[in-house]
């Protein structure tokens, strides 16, 4: 009377297995959150580097170090447009810090709608630049893309030495 019923060994084992599985699942989830936040920071830094490299090819034309070539413009503006499209998924909530140092400001997540609007604007400017076929239209289109980059970076990227 008043005694706890003994758990049968099967139930106990099942409970134990469940607890272990749960702990393991949590650990995996935790690790994957950490890993994904780290990967996403690396991924977006890679995307920005790709944009930077493409921008260098385009600015060489603007600086008259290279001749205007619609094919080069299409290719590099295309790289930028694609990277900016990908960037829509590269700033998830919680990726304001990770094992890799990030220069993204927490303000991104305080007003994500504004950040997303700025990203979209930049993407549309890159798309417009991609189809520039004549030299006279190149400078102004590049300028608009540059201003879109500036506006987003000024608001959402920390300055660094």
């Amino acid at each position, binding site marked *: 009377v008043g005694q706890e019923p003994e758990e049968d060994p099967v139930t106990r084992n099942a409970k134990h297995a469940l607890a272990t599985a749960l702990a393991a699942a949590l650990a995996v989830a935790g690790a994957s959150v950490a890993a994904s936040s780290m990967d996403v920071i690396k991924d977006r830094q890679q995307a920005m580097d790709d944009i*930077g490299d493409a*921008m*260098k090819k*385009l*600015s060489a034309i*603007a*600086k008259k170090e290279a001749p205007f070539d619609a094919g080069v413009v299409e290719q590099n503006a295309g790289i930028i447009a694609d990277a900016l499209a990908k960037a829509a998924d590269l700033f998830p909530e919680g990726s304001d810090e990770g094992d890799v140092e990030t*220069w993204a*400001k927490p303000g991104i997540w305080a007003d994500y709608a504004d950040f997303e609007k700025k990203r979209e604007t930049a993407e549309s400017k890159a798309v417009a630049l991609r189809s520039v076929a004549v030299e006279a239209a190149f400078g102004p289109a*590049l*300028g608009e*893309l*540059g*201003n879109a*980059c*500036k*506006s987003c*970076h*000024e608001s959402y*990227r*920390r*300055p*660094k*030495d």
Partner: protein
Amino acid sequence: MRIARRRVAAAFVLLAALAAALLLRLSRTDPLDGSALPVHTADPDNGEVLFHAGSCGSCHEAADGAAGADKGLPAGGAAFSTPVGTFYPGNLTPDSETGIGRWSDVEFLNAVTRGLAPDGTNYFPAFPYPSFRMMSVEDVLDLHAYLVSLPAVRSPNREPDVPMTAFARLGVGLWKRLAFRVPRFEADPSRSESWNRGGYLVNGPGHCGECHTPRNCLLIADEDRYLDGGPHPAGEGSVPSLRRLVERGRYKDVADLTLALRFGETFGYDKLSSGGMSEVQMNLARLPESDVEAIAEYLLSLH
């Protein structure tokens, strides 16, 4: 006994009054008077160049929703955050009630180069007058002429959100005594005309050192680390050093830095659009190309 106690009390009151008088005296910056004004025909076009060189419009921009204010006019009122508090830079349009419409040349000169309001109180040095005191009087008068040529906007001034504002303004007076000891930029006749122009623009109107020179514990520019970068005044990230720019692989030569300052990120110079620098870059883009080149020449000479 009672008399002795009264004497002590009286002495104490006297001492306190003397201390207060001394504080008031020390916190007062002597204003310039009319004799500081040279014979000069103001040139508003030169004033416009200085307006952009000083990025005046970037801090004195109109607050959102200011009545009839064109965003491009320096009607003031937009918040400017600093570690000391939030400031609302004043209305620089010639409105006679809320702007500088009634200011005399000498009042304007005292404001820009001495940090003194027309009523004699001290402006907080969020207004970078420690740099502007290096401007020539003629340039300041030209800037004044440019500002009064703009359309007037009614935009009342707003007190800053700083603890104990009136008392803090007295403290600013003491601070100025030390801050104004930092040597002014002096022309160097052994250098090119363009280097000297660049040095003047960087140190005077351009006030680059306000962010790029770290401050000491009294928030005064640390001469030993002149333009050598440091923590960002707004608290996020760091301000790059402007020294050894070529050695550090940032820019190839004067032509390269000139393009960077004129076009910034549009030409792939992606470092120039963080921490307020994109505004500065776009303001510099409005200077004559020779001025931007002069700035680049001066900066690349810093080792």
